[in-house]
């Protein structure tokens, strides 16, 4: 059904220094050229490989552009109803406490229709990890206003720009969840350049480690792009996100519990 990448042949006299993650399948993704979902998938896969937990990891895909993520991750996966991934993850983790569970959600899924589910899962300190991809727009349905769409940003459902008097303000989830005692680790990162990608990977790893140590709920919000629905080239989109999104959605940790801090220091 999907096209696949072929195994590369490594010549015998060369050392393998960078390999395809075991936690990714070889399927070609359906993501638009320039989309950052592929980068984020790869970071998660590398972290799962490095932690050696692929065979006990269960992911939950959202409704949105990454609805088919289960074809790309080489691990057990469920597909949730729109916004309900944190409830599904709760169900899975509670009956399988030895598994590593994560949800992969977009801004509409997590910050609009699934707001109740994410807040209560976080507040219960559920022992799973949420990867929250924030690109300030609804991608799959063709570019409508998201809960994270910036003030004045033009979308197909805010054709004159987001009017905050009418539609409210873009919602800052990393800050909102940070106020909940059940959250061990909440952070916002950005995959807009190489240093940002490296920092994002570190954050994802720490989030999974916090889960493995049983410290509480962990979430990594990731500032991402949607060049297709922003009507930009991929590079232009990265620049636009740096210029506009990061101002409103500052990068950095919003909650690091003492136990997670100790985990960080002990690395």
């Amino acid at each position: 059904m999907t096209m696949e990448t072929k195994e590369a042949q490594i010549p015998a006299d060369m050392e393998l220094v960078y390999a395809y993650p075991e936690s990714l399948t070889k399927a070609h993704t359906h993501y638009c050229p320039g989309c950052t979902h592929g980068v984020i998938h790869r970071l998660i896969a590398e972290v799962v490989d490095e932690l050696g937990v692929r065979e006990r990891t269960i992911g939950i895909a959202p409704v949105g552009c990454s609805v088919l993520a289960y074809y790309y991750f080489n691990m057990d996966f469920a597909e949730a109803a729109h916004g309900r991934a944190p409830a599904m993850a709760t169900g899975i983790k509670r009956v399988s406490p030895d598994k590593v569970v994560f949800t992969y959600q977009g801004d509409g899924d997590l910050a609009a229709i699934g707001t109740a589910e994410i807040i209560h899962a976080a507040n219960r300190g559920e022992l799973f990890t949420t990867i929250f991809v924030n690109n300030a727009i609804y991608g799959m349905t063709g570019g409508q206003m998201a809960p994270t769409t910036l003030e004045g940003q033009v979308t197909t459902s805010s054709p004159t720009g987001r009017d905050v008097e009418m539609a409210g303000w873009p919602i800052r989830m990393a800050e909102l969840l940070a106020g909940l005692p059940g959250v061990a680790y909440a952070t916002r990162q950005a995959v807009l350049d190489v240093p940002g990608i490296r920092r994002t990977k570190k954050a994802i790893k720490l989030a999974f480690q916090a889960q493995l140590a049983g410290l509480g709920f962990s979430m990594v919000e990731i500032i991402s792009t949607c060049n297709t629905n922003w009507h930009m080239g991929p590079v232009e989109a990265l620049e636009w996100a740096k210029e506009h999104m990061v101002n409103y959605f500052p990068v950095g940790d919003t909650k690091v519990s003492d136990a997670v801090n100790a985990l960080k220091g002990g690395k």
Partner: protein
Amino acid sequence: MTKELWEGNAAIAEAAIRAGLEAFFGYPITPQTEVLEHFSKRLPELGRVFLQAESEIASINMVYGAACAGARVMTSSSSPGVSLMQEGFSYIACSEVPAVVTNIMRGGPGLGNVQPAQSDYFQAVKSAGHGDFHMIVLAPSNVQEAIDLMVLAFDLAEKYRTIVMFVADGSIGQMMEPAEMPPMRPVRPASERPEWALTGAQGREHNIITSLYLGAENMERVNLRLQAKLREIEKNEVRWKEYQTEDADLLLVAFGTVGRVCQTVVREARQSGLKVGLLRPITLWPFPGQRIAELATQVKGILTVEMNAGQMLEDVRLAVEGRCPVRFYGRMGGPIPLPDEILPELKKLYAAVGG
């Protein structure tokens, strides 16, 4: 085992525990809250999972998740809460994971009240959610039957990898009756979860549980498979009970609480010289329509009695196909039809069919 005095809601919960329930996720709503309360006490002391969710939407999706993980799981609610769960029913049905839901029905529409009612028949039997699917629907008429059907609910859910709904009403839920609990089944260890479940891709290909099938042919193929399963369920799992139908001239059709009331009606009608029988559907889906069709050739008329405006009535008429007159008597929003109300309806029917 000996009989003990059990309240319906607590009995339902305890029966599920005896059937090997591993996890319960739910939200309080009258008149089923005692189900949740019983679980909140018993499941933690048995080392099993109890979680009070933030909503019925969350409850059903927690059930969906735990079912995907291969655990024996259920939720419980009452009419307005069940409406909130319908999204999840549809996903569970399409994903083919086993789950059990109880609906201790109350008066509606809207917030309605907390009185006993059967007005969610259409929702349970015909309209459980978007898309083409049916739930298996079990309807007990007393506490003992509620216990027995709870155990059956889990077996059917797992046999067919489908969603099973157990419908009763507040009068069964709140009533205390002597009943016998089944012995405690051992909980299935996590290492013995089904091979399709999400248990970690260790030494096998990764398992995917989804209800997304892009492409017309793909989605149709899934639908054909689901329909074939439903036909199989229709063939194997129709359940009903008959009372004095052998020589009956008139037939009562009623389920649940009012099905039980109609047993008294049969007795009283016979005392007054009317040869009346009763068919009480136990599975509302699949419906015992074939048996009703057979009886329609024997009796002179059928009276369907429900605690709603005439919902099962449609299925009775579809089964009878005009073979004999079908009449209806019902109460809505809480009143339970009493023998004194039903008996005159039977007499009117008898007069009308030339008895």
